[in-house]
């Protein structure tokens, strides 16, 4: 097991090297440099040259790449051109926001998706089943953007029930330790901030979690249906086990593998930045950080941000693979 994990982690190195080269070429292929984007109307050749010199963009590409990589190895991703802050600081500030949102969205998706899929499979070909299949199909068909707007319109603009922008009310003062608002407000023992953070999380989490919810429910249904037909389930029932025991020990446990796979994949996708949802709800996460960086041609932020997300993506997938072995002992042997 340890050997497997180490091997997978070592595989990260060539992947990161590949991504770093591609990213390096790619960001420089963006039309207009960071200097032009920064200066805007006031740009003139002298000032552009000046800025390029400050950031070393006037050196040959190969030199730039080696300077950059020698810093990256020491975990220094350079400085953002637009924000004039260290990229690593910015990632440290933004990533927790993305984690919080993705976590809330996944709790929503798994908490509803798995039971929904399970009950739907148990009541196959009933009104409940058809209803849930139809609902989940709509769930995968709805554009996130549209859903976000409906939620915003109904709950925020029409009825003012929930806030629809930012992570915390401006009037609430909260000391940032982990940058996870929920954790920070607990650390500060600030009930108002905790409650307000939750209120701010609800709409974006529902918007972001709906597609994963629908996918998880569908996978759960399919997987449980397959397991229900298996011989050992019939045997378990035949020997008189209680339905709840059969469901828990025999059905759910054996259906878990595809469910965990899809949960892992979806988590990876959510963590790697929900640009749209974050932009609609003005959520200060990784997605909006990188999205703005692409528009502003902020080379260091794009490079550092995407590489960071790629590592996260690979780590999440690794975690899922390790979970397989925990769930299914047969995999541990092979």
């Amino acid at each position, binding site marked *: 097991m340890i050997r497997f994990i180490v091997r997978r982690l070592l595989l990260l190195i060539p992947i990161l090297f590949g*991504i770093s080269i591609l990213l390096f070429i790619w960001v420089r292929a963006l039309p207009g440099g960071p200097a032009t984007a920064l200066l805007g109307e006031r740009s003139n050749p002298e000032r552009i040259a000046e800025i390029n010199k400050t950031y070393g963009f006037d050196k040959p590409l190969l030199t730039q790449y080696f300077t950059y990589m020698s810093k990256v190895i020491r975990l220094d991703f350079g400085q953002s051109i637009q924000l004039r802050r260290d990229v690593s600081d910015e990632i440290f500030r933004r990533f927790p926001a993305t984690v919080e949102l993705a976590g809330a969205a996944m709790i929503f998706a798994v908490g509803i998706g798995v039971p929904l899929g399970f009950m739907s499979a148990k009541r196959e070909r009933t009104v409940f089943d058809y209803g849930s299949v139809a609902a989940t199909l*709509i769930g995968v068909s709805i*554009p*996130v953007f549209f859903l976000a707007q409906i939620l915003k319109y109904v709950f925020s603009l029409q009825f003012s029930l929930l806030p629809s922008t930012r992570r915390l009310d401006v009037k609430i003062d909260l000391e940032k330790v982990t940058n996870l608002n929920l954790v920070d407000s607990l650390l500060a023992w600030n009930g108002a901030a905790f409650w307000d953070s939750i209120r701010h999380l609800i709409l974006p989490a529902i918007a972001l979690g709906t597609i994963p919810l629908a996918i998880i429910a*569908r996978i759960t249904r399919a997987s449980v249906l397959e397991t229900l037909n298996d011989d050992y389930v019939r045997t378990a029932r035949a020997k008189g086990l209680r339905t709840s025991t059969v469901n828990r020990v025999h059905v759910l446990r054996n259906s878990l593998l*595809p469910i965990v*796979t899809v949960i892992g994949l979806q988590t990876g996708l959510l963590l790697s930045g929900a640009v749209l949802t974050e932009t609609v709800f003005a959520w200060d996460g990784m997605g909006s950080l990188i999205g703005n960086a692409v528009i502003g041609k902020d080379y260091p932020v794009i490079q550092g941000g995407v590489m960071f*997300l790629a590592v996260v993506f690979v780590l999440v997938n690794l975690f899922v693979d390790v979970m397989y072995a925990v769930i299914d002992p047969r995999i541990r042997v092979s």
Partner: protein
Amino acid sequence: MRLLTRASSKELADSAADPGPNPRDDKAANSLGREAWRRIIHNPLAVVGGVIIIVFVLVAIFAPWLAPYDPRANTWFDQIRPTSIPGPSSEHWFGLDAGGRDELSRIIYGARASLMIGVLSLTIGAIVGGIIGLIAGAFGGWIDGLVMRITDIMLAVPGLLLALSVAAVIGQSQTAIIIAVAVPNVPLFARLLRGSMLGERQKDYVTSAYSVGVSRRVLVRRHILPNSVAPMLVQGSLALSTAVIDAAIDAAALSFLGLGSADPGVPEWGRMLTDTTRLLNVAPHLAFFPGMAILITALGFNLFGEAAREALDPKLRR
């Protein structure tokens, strides 16, 4: 996994390992096709989906005859106020847009853009991905390893980011959206074809052909490739739904982030949806109609795709 409609590329690629129907065995293929068709038309959900798809395609083709007005004519601009935009009326069923144009006509013409982007991007993705997969599958060894690591990297970069950068590189145009939707399809098809080719290479008929001295080129071209294409075609036709949906969603995302098509006069659902963000309070109908258009079209493709996938899956045939 087979029930997943908007499957992540990785899963779709992995399912390539399933040996598909054998296209050489015409009789079997025929009966599978006929059987699948019978199952589809007996499934009410599939029929609903099929009808939606047909309507969508017809609307796209016959847009000029169906649309009541010119989608680009801002004839009613004098009725637009910053605080009020006329909603649905008997004259304009879907109301007017912020530019004083007929929203219904724009929705009808918008179907064209979505269909075109979806079909073109899928074709490009399938061709480029197919060639890459063919190279990996035909040569194997270190070439295969290299190509697969590259597709790994492509899969690790979030699709929307890829789309963003493509649009940023080649400028704001419909071509950018087509390429942006096509690029994430490349690793998917590459893995699909490579997977089924590797599966085919293990088969006895390949070994026997090789042992009687058939050259590698002939082996790949005449034996392995024809037998490996079927799963790719099946998955490809199913991926069309995803492509059409992605076309709308990516276009929406790009224009939202300021990288959409350069000409705002050209109606396109995704863009129509996002351009109205600031007007949500004034004219919610401008978000509602394009949003519903995308939703219904996506639903149609998903309903039909789902049924087709089930019908073609030999494991579910009982």
